[in-house]
């Protein structure tokens, strides 16, 4: 290496470099995040799922609680997209046939009867966002009674449409994750912040509590606590009780992240500078520290969310979490609990797909956010 500068390289920074130099932290994070393709795709998937949660009622086809034993265990229907060469989706009507040896009713498509699908069709009545009473659904059949003819993912034992139930379960399971994460975040930030800022006895005690909580197997503990939720409680009360139970134990990881950030930031020059300039403690925390680790918190939250969703699903699956008539992914999977049912109605396992997809998406998203959270690194 020579000490002379190469002639063809300008001394001023290139355009890209100067863009980076003046970019805000937010821009840097966004640029870094954009590079992680999988995380971007996952973000889209997560947003799509939350859109389903928001618009669950209009997306559902049939009334999700409407039971009718004569429609039990109807297999998923195939959609035929073209009718006589033109685009006009329809499904065949169903013909029930009783097997004279086992006396079980089984359904077969009846090609003589075509049910045409329509968009923005009339179906069961609901109120949009609890405000606007309506009966318009995104998808339906021409006669306005999809519960008798449209079974995109089949039905369960009681003749309820699995597709519609899955859509409503998405709302329950995704919001329970959000509420649970919010609760753990409050606990985590309070206790982790106290631990990291205060140090001393508070830090030691909180750290030991976290260590103890993490060394206890959580599932048996959750099961014990969840089993104590009285059976007489309303679905909403059970919902909040379960969320509380999950977040009471789930806050430890978030507290660890918050404490770690506080400890790391305490040593930073700009904090010392702020202290020397006479800034108050509150100002240092909220003006200087919080903005610089907010991105880390968001990443930690998106990694904590799937754990919350798994917990709820597991508890409900065991019959200790949400209980019917509440609909969540776990409640739906509870129907698919034993081999006999699975052999008879394997389509009940469809409820597993959104669980896996959402958890994967949150994990990738969290990974991408964590990488992007520190754009100077």
């Amino acid at each position: 290496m020579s000490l002379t500068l190469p002639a063809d390289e300008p001394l001023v920074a290139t355009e890209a470099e100067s863009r980076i130099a003046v970019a805000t932290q937010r821009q840097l994070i966004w640029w870094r995040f954009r590079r992680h393709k999988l995380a971007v795709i996952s973000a889209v998937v997560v947003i799509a799922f939350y859109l389903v949660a928001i618009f669950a009622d209009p997306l559902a086809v049939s009334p999700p609680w409407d039971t009718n034993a004569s429609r039990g265990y109807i297999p998923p229907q195939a959609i035929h997209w073209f009718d006589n060469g033109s685009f006009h989706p329809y499904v065949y009507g169903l013909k029930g046939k009783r097997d004279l040896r086992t006396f079980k009713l089984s359904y077969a498509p009846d090609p003589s009867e075509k049910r045409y699908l329509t968009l923005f069709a009339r179906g069961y009545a609901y109120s949009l966002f609890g405000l606007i009473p309506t009966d318009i659904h995104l998808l339906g059949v021409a006669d306005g009674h999809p519960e008798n003819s449209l079974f995109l993912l089949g039905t369960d034992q009681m003749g309820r449409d699995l597709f519609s139930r899955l859509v409503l379960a998405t709302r329950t399971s995704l919001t329970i994750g959000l509420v649970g994460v919010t609760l753990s975040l409050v606990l985590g930030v309070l206790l982790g912040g106290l631990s990291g800022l205060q140090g001393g006895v508070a830090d030691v005690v909180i750290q030991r509590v976290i260590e103890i909580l993490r060394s206890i197997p959580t599932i048996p503990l959750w099961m014990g606590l969840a089993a104590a939720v009285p059976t007489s409680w309303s679905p909403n009360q059970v919902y909040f009780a379960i969320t509380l139970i999950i977040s009471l134990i789930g806050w430890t990881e978030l507290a660890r992240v918050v404490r770690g950030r506080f400890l790391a930031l305490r040593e930073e020059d700009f904090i010392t500078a702020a202290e020397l300039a006479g800034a108050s403690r509150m100002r240092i925390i909220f003006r200087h520290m919080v903005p610089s680790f907010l991105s880390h918190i968001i990443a930690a939250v998106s990694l904590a969310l799937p754990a919350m969703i798994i917990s709820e699903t597991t508890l409900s699956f065991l019959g200790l979490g949400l209980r019917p008539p509440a609909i969540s992914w776990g409640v739906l999977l509870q129907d698919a609990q034993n081999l006999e049912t699975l052999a008879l109605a394997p389509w009940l396992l469809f409820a597993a797909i959104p669980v896996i997809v959402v958890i994967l998406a949150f994990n990738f998203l969290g990974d991408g956010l964590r990488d992007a959270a520190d754009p100077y690194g």
Partner: protein
Amino acid sequence: MLAYLARRLVLAVITVWAITLVTFIIMQLPPGDFVDAYMAQSAAMGSAFSAAEAAAMRHAYGLDQPIWVQYEKWLALVAHGQFGLSFEYGRPVTEVIGDRLWLTVALALLAIVVTWGLALPIGIYSAVRQYSIGDYIFTFLGFIGLAVPNFLLALIVMYIGFRAFGLNVGGLFSADQQLAPWSWTKLADLGRHLPAPVLILALAGTAQLVRIMRANLLDELRRPYVMTARARGLSEHRVILKYPVRAALNPFASTIGYLLPFTVSGSVIISVVLSLDTVGPLLLHSLLSQDMLLASTIILLLGILTVIGTLLSDLLLMWIDPRIRLGQRR
């Protein structure tokens, strides 16, 4: 070293105490006590209880005393290894649990051994051959392992086993060995049934450990000493296994403290799905029928065993890592 050991021991004792407290709280949480449940049950069968009879029963079980007295009495009994009677079975709790506890321990330990046995070579491979096809395949499998909850994996494996091979993967014993006394035949039978649940249980933990091992080893492989070793002409095997892997192993070993509770948790769930003869289904059943003494004993024993396991793994860590052994802070 002694300070470290003492710190760990004290923490373990406090943890065990915390577990007893939590289990006792769980025991007390459901509204009404066993007598209420028993009365409702016998009322349904047609024989009513008088208030005096109920009071006598409460007195017999010590349910009429203040809560802290009940806790103290219970703690004293537990300390002597007496966990009381299962209300539902009318037999000592220890007898109801029986072999199930040891089967749970065996399942969890085997799963951890398999987790390590899989995660170590896969982690090394993924780091050494970073971005190779094999690395991508393992990363993909790892993400599946992370994303699919234990019970769902058990459910799917059970379904596939049934559909594709006509097998019933459930249970730990064949029907004829279920109630037989322990013998070599029974042990062999257990050996045939264990692989599926152990693998299901190990997958999630393996996925996590592979990611940790891969990241650790990648950091080590970039160190200059690795280049020096190569430059000196050491064989590739020796370069990788002798130093970087050993250095990367320490943070890896410290994760066992969290792996154990995680695996025990998972074993409860998959035992329910696969109807294994561990404490899992028993715990669920006792919780649903509010046989709280049985349920809390199971939670307590699982908790204590986990704490002991964690303590042992800390000792192991001390043995591996001289920095801890020589009394420096981790």
